[in-house]
């Protein structure tokens, strides 16, 4: 179900594509899937900390996005993450914003 609009079956994110012939996915075997989820949390947190937020795995089926002030929300996938991050932080999460890039470059350059 799409968590934003409630439409059943509304979500199938490209980064979590179901295993089908010809499709590239890390969703097919459980070990690789778990490793990918852990990597995703680590890398997303590099970005989210600028906005005062943190992502963690939630039961291996979703993610929990939390703010420093304790607001939190379950997100299903990367497509869902950024709209919720903007909602919880009240800021635009813009990967092209010059000040954001300067910060990220200083932190990870």
């Amino acid at each position: 179900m799409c968590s934003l609009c409630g439409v059943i079956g509304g979500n199938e994110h490209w980064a979590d594509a179901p295993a089908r012939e010809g499709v590239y996915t890390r969703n097919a075997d459980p070990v690789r899937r778990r490793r990918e989820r852990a990597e995703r949390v680590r890398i997303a947190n590099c970005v989210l900390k600028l906005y005062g937020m943190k992502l963690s795995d939630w039961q291996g089926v979703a993610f929990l996005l939390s703010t420093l002030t304790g607001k939190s929300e379950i997100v299903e996938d990367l497509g869902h993450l950024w709209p919720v991050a903007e909602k919880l932080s009240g800021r635009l999460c813009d990967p092209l914003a010059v000040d954001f890039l300067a910060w990220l470059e200083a932190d990870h350059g």
Partner: protein
Amino acid sequence: MGESLPAFTPVTLLTGFLGSGKTTLLRRLLADPALADTAVIINEFGEVGIDHLLVERLDDQMVLLSSGCVCCTVRGELATAIRDLHSRRERGLMPPFRRLVIESTGLADPFPVLSTLKADPVLRHHFRAAGVVTTVDAVNGLIQFERHIESVRQAAIADVIVLTKTDIAEEAATARLVARLGAMNPSAPLLRAAEDPLDADALLKSGGSGWFKAIAEPHTEMAAHRGVRAFSIVVDEPLDWTAFGVWLTMLLNRHGARILRVKGILALEGEERPIAIHGVQHLVHAPTHLSCWPSDDRRSRLVFIVEGIEPDLIQRSFSIFKRLNISVAA
């Protein structure tokens, strides 16, 4: 239904500005016996009277919920029409069709049609977008580009561009139009309907694995037209898939409406074969494994067609994000 039918029926979107020759091209393509098992949906009444094809009529209703959620950007009646075709095919009430062509109205934005295929829970298990074919009128194309941003978007989003009416257009005007199209969408093959023998089967497969025509030079950037420009990013070292996913989803969430097209062939860490990825605005198709590299060049290449975004910013953002995994691991 016969066992030889594909698991996913490929859907080709035929678009182009008003009067650019969509229906003429469709009539010509459908005369090819290779397309005898093709169903057609036309979203305005046309004159294509062919007895082995289905012609459905759609109105211009579009459903866009106020939440702005992309997966709700669907054309309700289009989804219903395709579901109905699928249902009748499954029940044996019509000849089994192996592909579907949707001819859109001349003013339509192609995105909602593609989004419908991806978002509808029934359709996405039976149909796949196979590509966008855009007709551009050689006589009026340049004027339409100046006056109607829709025509620019239709050309920018195309997998294949079919230039029409070149037999009645002035050579110089056609040359200017070809140059303009090359700048807006350098990765789309350009065919001339009047001169080229169009292979209907190949044309409708344009969105398949053979769609990627690489831009060889790193960060090649073409001149902008009405803010629409194409550029490419070439990366020597293998990419980290997770960092790429975090970056692209963040980029499309904020700027998806202005990223008309993204296409890429990626060399990923730990993967021998290349991965193809392509998207239209907010919509990204499931990434696919290509059987082999198309040439000896094994660098990752991404092609963007954007509207009103500075390519340097995307390049810089991409460069920083692709280092994230290295710095996190260090």
